[in-house]
């Protein structure tokens, strides 16, 4: 490939936010994924925000059918997928219409003008072609006939015209790759592997990719080429990872670290299904994935596998957790280890299946009948899902309890570079099964008491079917302390209820302290949990730049709380809690610690921008909201 860099100015950028948008059949997610991968391989820090409609294929050309992928690439550490994109690639009028308001004023808009015919304009409600009514005056607009150029580029390849047209996303990728000096090689490798069995598809896609690149290089239209150089990452080997993949790998790692086979009971649900798909690919680790007839059976099968001595998981989203509630309570009563992973989405009911929200926190902590306390942990970034899957498993196994791990749609589908951990440095989370008698019965005979607890952890012994002499019956009925026989006495139920609670509370001494990010002596604290970590961190950075620095903490453990949390909160005059719900953690903090924590909320199916958090703080300061 000839280098025409001498013709254009290559400008160094410290960061850029690009948004690819098109019809849901246009392959925008793939385009975004590939650009992410090439950027990560180039050493940038990257964060992504895929957004796609709930319908598999909403009517073509409509606003409802628009699928978008936002990517933030940077030469320094970044925390969000970007508040305002600098560049929009719009494959059709609907994409332009639905996305333009988000684009930074003065930003670049690249249009596939082949799709700007009257029919498509009408479909998405444009009465006048937006290229002609002055509505794009604030933007640098590039009009590119992507579809016809793609068809032209693939003319010599034996593909149908329709299939050739489908490669136009690769043309767009090639063009943007040229603009931001991204190598095409990783994408070419990927295409060759992905379509190995369809050489004509490989040829068409590569031709389109190269044509897009050449178009940028040769046309006068694109005078500028930009470069975002590598971010100064810590030394190590990196890979690009989504939250769902990291969760699945964390589950596999947990099985290896616990030296137990993994069992996953699951039922397809957006946005959690990819965890099931990923695990199903790795049966060579001895993983049993069971796609059950429903959410309840998925959780039930996990309980059964846990009784049999497997490290048992069930993966789902909020509606599925609602259905699993009774089964989770059974695991709670029987005190069997199990990890429930909730990839949260917008609710209630079917809600916004493909959009992110963090509104299942109270459901996780309190959403079961009876007093059924259980540990709840939450991941804060895509790669952190790996660590938290291990941590949830550690707690479940050590304390013989169901544990809920909360992630969300944004973490699940978002991607970031991950400094791969040294496998040998991961914690040993193995536990011992009981194989011998641990008590004497009323007649002085040796006996096995399934509810004779470890005095330190209050965990009960875990004896597996197949162990001679330790035959015992678990169940949902209240059990006698110690012997584990069915027992309804008032004193025993009170005792067992308090023991179950004390066991979960006691985990607080076995989890890390919450760490203050900042100087520790400011009067304002931002408190986050889950996927808001990046937005809150960026808000903290901006506040510091503006001369109003704040401290920040981020909770990874919500039940029980970090043991120093109350003390930390009480150090601050002002405590703000940004959440993608209507104020759930803030309720818990206020009731638990009697602090006047203020809530900042968002319910739009999207992550916070840093500016939204800052404006939420200002609203409290100005007295706009209580």
């Amino acid at each position, binding site marked *: 490939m000839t280098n025409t860099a001498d013709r254009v100015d290559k400008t160094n950028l410290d960061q850029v936010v690009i948004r690819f948008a098109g019809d849901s059949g246009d392959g925008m997610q793939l385009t975004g994924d590939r650009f992410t991968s090439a950027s990560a391989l180039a050493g940038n820090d990257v964060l992504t925000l895929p957004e796609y409609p709930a319908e598999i294929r909403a009517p073509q050309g409509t606003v409802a059918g628009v699928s978008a992928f936002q990517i933030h690439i940077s030469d320094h550490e970044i925390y969000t997928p970007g508040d305002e994109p600098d560049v929009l690639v719009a494959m059709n009028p609907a994409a332009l219409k639905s996305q333009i308001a988000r684009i930074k004023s003065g930003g670049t808009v690249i249009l596939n003008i082949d799709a700007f015919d009257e029919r498509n304009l009408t479909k998405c409600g444009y009465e006048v072609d937006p290229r002609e009514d002055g509505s794009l005056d604030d933007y640098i607009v590039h009009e590119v006939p992507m579809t016809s150029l793609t068809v032209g580029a693939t003319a010599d390849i034996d593909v149908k015209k329709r299939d050739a047209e489908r490669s136009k996303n690769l043309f767009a990728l090639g063009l943007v790759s040229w603009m931001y000096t991204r190598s095409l090689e990783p994408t070419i490798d990927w295409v060759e592997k992905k379509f190995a069995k369809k050489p004509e598809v490989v040829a068409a896609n590569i031709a389109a990719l190269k044509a897009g690149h050449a178009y940028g290089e040769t046309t006068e239209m694109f005078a500028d080429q930009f470069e975002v150089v590598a971010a100064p990452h810590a030394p190590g*080997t990196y890979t690009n990872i989504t939250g769902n993949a990291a969760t699945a790998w964390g589950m596999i790692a947990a099985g290896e670290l616990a030296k137990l086979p993994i069992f996953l009971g699951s039922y397809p649900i957006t946005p959690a299904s990819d965890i099931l798909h990923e695990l199903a690919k790795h049966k060579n680790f001895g*993983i049993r994935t069971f796609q059950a007839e429903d959410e309840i059976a998925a959780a*039930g099968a996990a309980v059964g596998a846990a009784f049999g001595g497997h490290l048992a998981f069930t993966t789902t989203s909020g509606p599925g957790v609602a259905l699993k509630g009774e089964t989770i309570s059974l695991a709670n009563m029987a005190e069997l280890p199990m990890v429930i992973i909730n990839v949260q989405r917008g609710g209630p009911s079917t809600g916004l299946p493909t959009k992110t929200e963090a509104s299942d926190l109270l459901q996780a902590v309190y959403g079961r009948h009876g007093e059924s306390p259980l540990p709840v942990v939450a991941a804060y970034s895509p790669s952190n899902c790996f660590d938290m899957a291990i941590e949830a498993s550690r707690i479940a196994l050590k304390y013989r309890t169901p544990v809920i791990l909360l992630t969300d749609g944004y973490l699940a589908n978002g991607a970031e570079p991950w400094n791969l951990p040294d496998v040998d440095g991961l914690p040993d989370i193995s536990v011992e099964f009981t194989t011998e008698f641990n*008590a*004497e019965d009323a007649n002085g005979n040796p006996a096995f008491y399934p509810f004779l607890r470890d005095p330190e952890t209050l965990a009960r012994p875990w004896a597996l079917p197949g162990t001679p002499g330790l*035959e015992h019956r678990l169940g949902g009925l209240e059990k006698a302390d110690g012997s584990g026989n069915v027992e309804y006495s008032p004193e025993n139920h009170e005792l067992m209820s308090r023991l179950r609670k004390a066991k979960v509370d006691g985990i607080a001494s076995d989890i890390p302290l919450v760490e203050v990010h900042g100087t520790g002596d400011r009067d304002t604290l931002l408190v986050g949990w889950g996927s808001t970590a990046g937005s809150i961190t960026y808000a903290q950075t901006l506040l510091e730049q503006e001369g109003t620095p704040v401290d920040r903490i981020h909770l990874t453990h919500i039940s029980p709380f970090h043991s120093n949390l109350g003390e930390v909160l009480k150090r601050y005059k002002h405590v703000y809690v940004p959440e993608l719900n209507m104020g759930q953690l803030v309720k818990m903090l206020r009731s638990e610690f009697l602090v006047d924590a203020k809530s900042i909320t968002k319910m739009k199916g999207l992550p916070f921008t840093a500016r939204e958090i800052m404006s939420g703080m200002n609203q409290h300061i100005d007295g706009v909201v209580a």
Partner: protein
Amino acid sequence: MSSTVEIQTDPTKRGHWTSSQEVRWCPGCGDYGILAAMQFLHTELGVKRENSVFISGIGCAARFPYYMNSYGMHTIHGRAPAIATGLALARPDLDVWVIGGDGDMLSIGGNHLIHALRRNVNIKILLFNNQIYGLTKGQFSPTSEVGKVTKSTPMGSIDAPFKPLGLAAGAGASFIARTHDLDRKHMMATFKRAHEHKGAALVEIYQNCNVFNDGAFDAIVKRANRDEMMIDLVHGEPILFGAEKQRGIVMHGGGATIAEVADVGLDAIAIHDEKNPDPSVAFALGQMADNRQSPTPFGVLRAVEQQEYSEAVENQLKLAKKNQGEGNLHDLLHSGATWDVE
């Protein structure tokens, strides 16, 4: 106190299989007979009690695991087949029995039952059918007859009942059988067949609830009625019944009817073939269960060989290891595109 010294009991005696827990069904309940049959069966099976697991849901029948000296779990309403499926997949080395009533298995848990049967998971499901909700004190169940007057149906039930064995045949069950709580020998023989079967087995047990639905099956299973009302199925034999074996079953396009041998001749009587791959024959027999009115088949309706589920799961694990090599965590983490930062 830690010791593996066990009080030795004789596995060929019922006491070896009896837990220390007091049995708390109503006096006269049919469940006592079923428990005894199961315990006596275990004195003959030559299995170890640590390898048997009884999983139940909710209902009177579901207390069963507490009374067996084995591993067990009394779970939640309707979910026993799902929980047992997880255990059977995790631990193919165990004997997993599932115990439940008609409400548990066919109403709240109907979905789990049919899916366990169609997957052919290696679990043995005993359906205690008493045609009533007992534990909640007498509401009609999914097997109650139309017109049944109960607390929740003072004007009589208007729900058409399930015929559980027809349902099982429809779900593709590989083993389907019926027995009743008054005949321990028949129960033991039927449970034994279920135990020997590789795959999911459904055994319906006509079980008397002497408090809320007393005598529901008297017209069939009382000793005086058995000759004329119970149709004993014997593999390879013509399906005949009656004191003089004077009646039999004739199969015809899509159904089974009862005929007098004298009218149709012995050659017209169907030969029972429990191995028939076509489930419609078992379905036709399973639908012959108008309990208060007409003769009803007992014994094994269907016992066919099908791929057992946990074996298929294990085969895939072995194949994955063969094709991909033993899983290696370091390699997994490095399986995507990676780059090094110095």
